[in-house]
């Protein structure tokens, strides 16, 4: 008999309006299983404002406060302050935002919330572009990726810089806990969310969230692509706590090509571009490992 390691409770109802194969939807399902019913989610303009369904329906079985694009950190601080003044201490406040709402327009209020030592968990579901508005480049779009605002065109110019190193920025800002998670490794994901729940202060989760229409992958490939992101070392799984970095899974054993060439947004890559990306990924992975060994 197999033993279930994933909690059976469901907090995301059937009939949500996420796209087929949406990584964020699977991510939310897993995260909420780890968080449980005493959770309040606040969420800015992003795919999630659509995925949850249209009023008067709502797909989540926990309270959700929707708000404007750039204020996830601020609304989280407000919710936590009110809970504190009301003497409620058994609720997890979760800011749930996309990469644009986090690393671009929402960076200021997230930084403010970290400065304020707000006790909350910020989960960035990173689909690597502004997907809700139809695939435009964000600060988290990877090097040489195609988007509608980096369309290549006659000039054959795509995204010209790598992903913003948001975790490093937030560690420097003063988060007490940080972790990367992937829908391809749900047990690791759930363990990290459960752990973070019990830590007081500002915490940040960076979740890779494959987006079939934006990444131009078949809807059946989301989990596979997410797994390859980790296996190629492009999205390593690690944890940061009290100044200590720990690599959760040291499983980099595949060339980046296997991850990139599955996706239509990278189909234009030349062998030079692939070589450059491979080189950068190798360097960054080694740097991460070194950092983990040093502090660990």
């Amino acid at each position, binding site marked *: 008999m197999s033993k279930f390691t994933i909690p059976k409770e469901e907090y995301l109802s059937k009939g949500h309006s996420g796209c087929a194969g949406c990584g964020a939807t699977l991510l939310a399902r897993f995260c909420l299983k780890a968080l449980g*019913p*005493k959770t*309040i989610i*606040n969420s800015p303009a992003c795919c999630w*404002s*659509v995925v*949850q*369904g*249209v*009023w*008067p329906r*709502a797909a*989540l*079985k*926990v*309270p*959700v*406060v*929707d*708000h*404007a694009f*750039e*204020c996830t*950190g*601020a*609304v*989280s*601080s*407000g*919710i936590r*302050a*009110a*809970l*504190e*003044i*009301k003497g409620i201490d058994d*609720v997890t406040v979760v800011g749930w935002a996309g990469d644009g709402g986090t690393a671009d327009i929402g960076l*200021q*209020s997230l*930084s*403010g919330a970290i*400065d*304020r030592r707000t006790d909350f968990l910020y989960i960035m579901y990173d689909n690597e572009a502004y997907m809700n508005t139809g695939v435009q480049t964000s600060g988290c779009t990877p090097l040489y990726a195609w988007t509608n605002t980096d369309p290549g065109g006659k000039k054959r110019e795509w995204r010209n810089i790598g992903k913003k190193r948001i975790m490093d920025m937030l560690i420097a800002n003063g988060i007490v806990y940080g972790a990367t998670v992937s829908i391809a490794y749900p047990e690791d994901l759930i363990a990290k969310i459960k752990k973070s729940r019990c830590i007081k202060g500002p915490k940040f989760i960076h979740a890779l969230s494959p987006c079939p229409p934006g990444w131009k992958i078949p809807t059946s490939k989301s989990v596979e692509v997410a797994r390859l992101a980790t296996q190629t070392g492009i999205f390593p799984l690690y944890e940061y706590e009290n100044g200590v970095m720990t690599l959760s899974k040291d499983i980099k054993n595949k060339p980046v090509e296997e991850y990139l060439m599955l996706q239509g947004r990278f189909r234009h890559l030349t062998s030079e571009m692939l070589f450059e990306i491979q080189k950068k990924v190798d360097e960054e992975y080694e740097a991460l490992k070194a950092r983990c060994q040093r502090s660990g």
Partner: protein
Amino acid sequence: MIDLMTGNVAAAKAAMLAGVEVVAAYPITPQTSISEKLAEMVANDEIKAKYIKVESEHSAMAALIGASYMGARTFTATSSQGLALMHEMLFWAAGARRPIVMTVVSRSLGPPWNIWTDHMDVIGERDTGWMQFFCENNQEALDLILLAYKVAEDKEVMLPTMVIEDGFILSHTFEKVDIPAKEEVDFFLPPFNPDVKVNFRKPRRYGSLVMPDWTMEFRYNNYLAMEKAKKKFAEAGSAFSKAFGRDYSSLIESYRCEGAEAVLIITGSAAGTAKVAADRMRERGKKVGVAKMRVFRPFPNEELLKLAENVRTIGVFDRSYTFGYGGAIYSEVRNALFSLAADLKVKGYIGGLGGRDVTETDFEKIFDDLLTLRRSGLASNQVDWVGLKDGSMRW
């Protein structure tokens, strides 16, 4: 207890008396001393509240929206550029029906950089769905905050409210203020207990996506709430008068309007100066009065029509300028009185921008201009600028 204090201290004391639970504020002149005072009150346990040190005004309003959803009574204060930065969240607070109360210490918008008062900041936010109450003096800076909570949190209203005090003229000037006892305020203003707040036993989504098939109904409910707020203000104002002896039972305060041949409509601290000018005119046998518009949103149409039944020459003094047109209050008053247009004269005056003094003499000249207009029936301009240095001005 009567004490001497600035408008900003009066505002902070009002927030304390109202028992605010969450304050989020960001520094900006001339508001800063309100948030400093509140931070001090929180630090000294004079008030059981959380003070959130936000990194911008936009975040101040966002934080309060979050706190208000949890059922907390909330307060902030800002001015000028800070209010402009909040713009997006002002719509959000009103659409989400969160009865947040905010003191706006009115200040000019740059450029040119100017930290002194005018109403361009608040007039710029008139369409965000907030109620807007103007203060004439420091007593009102305190009283109108208590009244604002009473009206804003009414279950049939549930709208956010700006209480507007003029920068420096009120915010930094000492005046006598009668501070009500906490028990009396508690009786007047019971704890905030909204019907709509987050409930973990009945999880809901707040601020959902709504399609065109329902959005208009949401907006219509905002409209109804604003309309009801007029009556609710008058009722709360009467209750306030019974509790504290100061009368706020009308949205427009009439001063010496009985038998007046001309009346000047005005908001804010300049109303006090206009009243003194009206007294002087009356001494000289000139029948003029002042109608102080306390409440600009919701717009007091009904009271205006009543005023115009007896006075056929009306001036409107705007401490703001709507680029490309004239004064916002002027145009709205004119619009409200349009049905009486046949023998009614309405003229706009713009002055006091960027903290320019508006003197008793200025108002005497405005009254004389209105009386001339009444006799001649001809206005050379629909809108005049008052108190300019330039020789091209009318006086």
